[in-house]
Structures are given as structure tokens and as C-alpha cells.
């Protein structure tokens, strides 16, 4: 019973956040230089009929509140994000839709690699805190953490693509390249540096956080008990410390999803990777607000969902959360 109440609360919170994002987007849409009307009229590739239809759909001939707000939320929920200014008046959803997969590929793989490596590095440095290995590991983590993603990417291109010539400098595939298995290899060769950039950029903060939670856990009584029982070091670390120390890292990974996405967008610009980041820059240059807002909405919803999932995962890892005990 309690678990269901807890779940409902979480889902309700996530829905409230999405509603707030919609409200924010609505306000932004009206703040925009010129009314949404003018933004439509400024778009030479949208026909007069389409404009008239959109005006009715978005309720632009009615009062701002509540009619326009209701119409806007309704239209957005049914997937009507308006028309792109730059991309020939195409619907925003289709412009954005085709860019999702490339971004998901590099952000997803980068995040997985970063979590694995960051946890390993953090556990190792936390366990050996104060020793030489810890100093070096922590300093590297701090340096990686302080680098702007795009700068890291530019350095990697200069070194591994231009100077050493191991990997391609940009793009997602060789023009007129092979298909089939060779095509996948070609894709992975192009993806390697963007993924490495995102992974390296993220490893730092995961390692720093895990290190401090491992170091903190080492002071706990249960670690002393485990030692007294005569358990081997790696059993203590894996079986007793990590399950507890991982919790804040899980939370951070989810909380940071929004920040990661921001960084990933700039990585795509460095590598001309045809995903949401490159689209964002192009939309920004042509002041294509409908596309920008669509991207914001999409990313916001993904982040909210990611946080909801992290909450669920957290409650599995730590039963105290769902039973409402003090944390």
C-alpha cells in the first residue's frame, strides 16, 4: 500500500514538472519577438491555408488566457509543435525526429562507459584514499571535470584525427562509403571520438562523487565488522561498501542528465555529428524558435523520465526510501 502511494507521488511529481515545462514553453512562445502569428507569417514556405489552420488550432484568435494556453497544451500533447522556419516549413516533430537516433547513440554509449569507468576509478581512489594512486586519480578526475566538453573534443580531434590520423575528424559516415558490416564499422569509427569525449567529460564527476562516498563508508561500523569477520578486501568493497556508496552516484547520474545533454550538444558541433546538437546550432543561427522549443521540450521530458526511472531504481537499491524511513 505504502509502495503504491510512494509511486503515485513520484509519477505525479514528474507530471507536474512536465506541466511546468509546457507552461514555460507557452510563456516563451508568447515572449518571442513578434507574436507566434508573425513567426508563422515570416515563414515564407508555410501556405496561407496552413497558417489559417494553425491559427485556429492554436487559438490565436481567442484571448491569451485561458483559451490560447489550453489550445497550446492540447496541440503540443497531440504532437503539434509548429513549423520549422529553416527547414522548408516542415513540421518540427519530423525535423527533430530524425536527429534523435544519432544523439542517443553517442550520449547513451558515452554515459554507459563513463558510469562504468567512473565507478571503477572512484572505488579504487576511495579505497586507497591519501595514497599516491588516489592523488593522481583524483587530480585527473578534477581536470576532466573542469574541461568544457567541446574543448576536450577539439583536443581529441587535433590529436587522434588530424595528427595521428587514426580516426575520421567529423561526420557520421564516409560519403559514398560501404554498406552492411563495413558500414557499421565505418559508423563506429566516426562515433568513437564523440563517444570518448562525452565519456571522458563525465568520468570525472562520477569518480569524484563515488570516491567521497567510498571514503565515507570506510569509516562506518559495518566495514569494521566485515574486517573483523576476516573478509577479503575485494569482498568488503564489492559486497559491503559499493552497494551503499553507489546511491548518490545513481542520483547524480539522473540529476545530471540535463547537464550532460547540454554538453553533448556542443560535442556534436565539434564533430559535425548530425544529431540534436548540430540541429540546435543551426536552428539558433536562423532563429528557428519552433525547432529550439521542440528540442527543449523533448529533452526536458526525457530528463524528467530519466529522473523518475532513477527514483524507481533508488527505491530498489535502498528499501528505506519507499518505506518512508528517514534517509
Amino acid at each position, binding site marked *: 500500500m505504502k509502495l503504491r502511494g510512494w509511486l503515485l507521488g513520484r509519477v505525479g511529481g514528474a507530471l507536474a514538472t512536465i506541466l511546468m515545462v509546457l507552461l514555460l514553453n507557452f510563456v516563451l512562445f508568447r515572449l518571442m519577438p513578434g507574436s507566434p502569428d508573425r513567426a508563422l507569417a515570416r515563414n515564407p514556405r508555410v501556405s496561407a491555408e496552413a497558417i489559417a489552420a494553425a491559427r485556429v488550432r492554436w487559438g490565436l484568435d481567442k484571448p491569451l488566457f485561458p483559451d490560447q494556453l489550453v489550445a497550446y497544451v492540447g496541440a503540443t500533447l497531440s504532437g503539434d509543435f509548429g513549423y520549422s522556419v529553416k527547414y522548408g516549413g516542415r513540421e518540427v516533430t519530423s525535423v527533430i525526429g530524425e536527429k534523435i537516433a544519432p544523439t542517443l547513440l553517442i550520449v547513451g554509449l558515452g554515459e554507459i562507459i563513463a558510469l562504468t569507468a567512473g565507478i571503477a576509478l572512484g572505488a579504487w581512489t576511495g579505497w586507497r584514499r591519501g595514497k599516491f594512486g588516489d592523488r593522481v586519480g583524483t587530480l585527473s578526475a578534477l581536470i576532466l571535470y573542469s574541461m568544457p566538453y567541446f574543448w576536450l573534443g577539439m583536443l581529441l580531434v587535433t590529436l587522434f584525427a588530424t595528427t595521428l590520423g587514426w580516426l575520421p575528424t567529423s561526420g557520421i559516415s564516409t560519403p559514398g562509403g560501404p554498406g552492411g558490416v563495413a558500414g557499421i564499422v565505418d559508423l563506429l569509427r566516426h562515433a568513437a571520438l564523440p563517444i570518448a569525449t562525452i565519456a571522458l567529460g563525465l568520468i570525472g564527476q562520477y569518480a569524484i562523487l563515488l570516491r567521497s562516498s567510498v571514503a565515507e563508508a570506510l569509516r562506518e561500523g559495518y566495514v569494521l565488522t566485515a574486517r573483523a569477520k576476516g573478509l577479503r578486501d575485494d569482498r568488503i568493497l564489492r559486497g559491503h561498501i559499493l552497494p551503499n556508496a553507489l546511491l548518490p552516484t545513481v542520483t547524480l547520474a539522473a540529476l545530471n542528465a540535463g547537464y550532460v545533454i547540454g554538453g553533448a550538444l*556542443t560535442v556534436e558541433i565539434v564533430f559535425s555529428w548530425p544529431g540534436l546538437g548540430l540541429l540546435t546550432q543551426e536552428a539558433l543561427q536562423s532563429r528557428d524558435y519552433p525547432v529550439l522549443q521542440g528540442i527543449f521540450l523533448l529533452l526536458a521530458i526525457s530528463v524528467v523520465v530519466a529522473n523518475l526511472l532513477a527514483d524507481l531504481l533508488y527505491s530498489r537499491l535502498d528499501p528505506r526510501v519507499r518505506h518512508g524511513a528517514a534517509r
Partner: protein
Amino acid sequence: MSGNVKLSVGGRILNRVSGGNLLLLLLRRWDARVALAILTLLALSGIAPGLFVGPLQTATTAEAAPLLPPSGAHLFGTDDLGRDLLNLTVHGARISLVVGALSAVITLLLGGGIGMIAGYRGGRADALLMRIADTFLILPTFVLALILAPILRELIGDQTEILGIRTTLLTIVAVIGITSWSSTARIVRSQTLSLRERTFVERARLVGLSPMRIIARHIFPNIRTVLVANGIVVIAGSILTESTLSFIGLGDPFQPSWGTILGNAQSAAAPSLGAWWFIMAPGGAILFTVIACTIVGNAIDELLDRDVRVRR
């Protein structure tokens, strides 16, 4: 009850470690000394860049050949227009640091104000404000900043200057402030919540001081140190955000920051031309600033933390 004991200890510490005292404590640590030295050097070049490298070079005043690697005449090499990168980077310090610091001020004002009001008022106002803060905390605020910046710019125009800073940069300051106040608000709120229950605040309430006056006279002085510690981290974050926004193309070409220079390097295809020096100087400057701020922030945190532990 144990909570209360801890709070009162925290409160005393906060009074104890403040102002010049904090600086002295910091200077006892070697890592903080190095970090503060780096920040001082950067601040000096930001205050008087002309003193070190002469006036900012532009496309018309640049004399060297384009994309020269580092040499005796040009320590950090030249960019695609033949401008000296040392000159650009030192002048960039002014823009990056000023925009970073101003954004941090706005962030702290917004976050501190909202946090203190939410914490002191409690109840519905608190619930609503923290709901908003949580939303901002998880949203991809960077993308929000990307949309807000051009909108603001079109609303106020970008042809004027205020105090020598072009309005393009001021919109960036505003946008960073608007999108990054939430973590400060959370920290300040939790401090305020504990201060509210302390006897001296209660006494002030009994005497009949207005809530605004209590916040200004009794709450604020006690969270100043927390704000300083948070402020250092916020500055680092603001500088990173500013450089990213400028890299994408929202900077001001007439007042280039480090991020703007890196954006130029990207559009000049410096990475694929192998012109490593074009990215080294401005990127290294960002890296050093952020690392130095992080080290100082950590040091302050540890100082406050250790005091709490010792006294417990």
C-alpha cells in the same frame, strides 16, 4: 533533538569563520594557495589586459600571418586572422571573468533571496518555490538558456553598452542567472530553516521585527559564509556556461571571451588543420580558472566541515 544541537554548532561555526578569517585559514593550505595565486593572476589580466599585451587586436589591426605556430614573437601563435593569441586570451580573461562573476552575483541574489524567503516563510510559499527550484534543477537549463538568450536580445536590442559591457554579454549574464539559481536556493533554504528555529531569531520575532528585517539583519549575516563557498562554485559553473554559450555563437565578436575564441577556432577548422595552439591558450585558461575555483570551493567546504566535526 540531536538535530538542534548540530544546528547550533553549525551556526556558531558560520559566525566564527567569516571574512578575512576565512582567507587566512585558506592561505594555510598549499592547494588553496596555488589556486588563489592563479585566480589573482587571471584577475589582474582581466582588470588591466592592456598593460600586459596592449590593446585588443582586431581583424584590421592584426599584423602577423594567419595560423602561425607559437614562436618568440607570438608565444601562443596566431589565429586565422593573424591576431596574436596571447593578446586575445588575456583580453578574453576580462570578458570571461566579468561575465562569470556578474552571472554568479545574479545567481546568488536570486538563489539566496528565494532560498531565504522559502526557508523563513515555510508552508505553501516554501512548497511552491522549492517545486520550481527542483524543476530548474533537473531541466536541461542549458538548452533553456540557448532559447532565452536570443529572445532577450531581440527584446532589448544589442547595440548599446552599459558600463563598458555590451548588452549581448548582459543578456548572457541574465540568462545564466535565470537558469542556475536553483541549487543555491536549495542550500540557502536548508540553512535558513535551521536558523529560523534559533533563539535569537525567535527573540527578534518577539520584539516585533518584520520578516524582511529579520531576514536582512539576522538570517543573512549567518548564511554569508555558505554563500561565499557556494559562490566560488557558482562562478566556475558560470564561466563554463558562458564559454559554452559563446562557443555556440551567442558571444560578442567585439568583446571576445575564451569561449568566443574557441568558437572562432572551430569555425576556422583549427582542430582538423592541426592548429593546436589556436585552442590551447583559451581552453587552458578556462581549465585553470575552473580548477582553481573548484579547489578553493572544496577547501572552504572542508574548513567548515572540519570545524563542525571537531566541535561535535
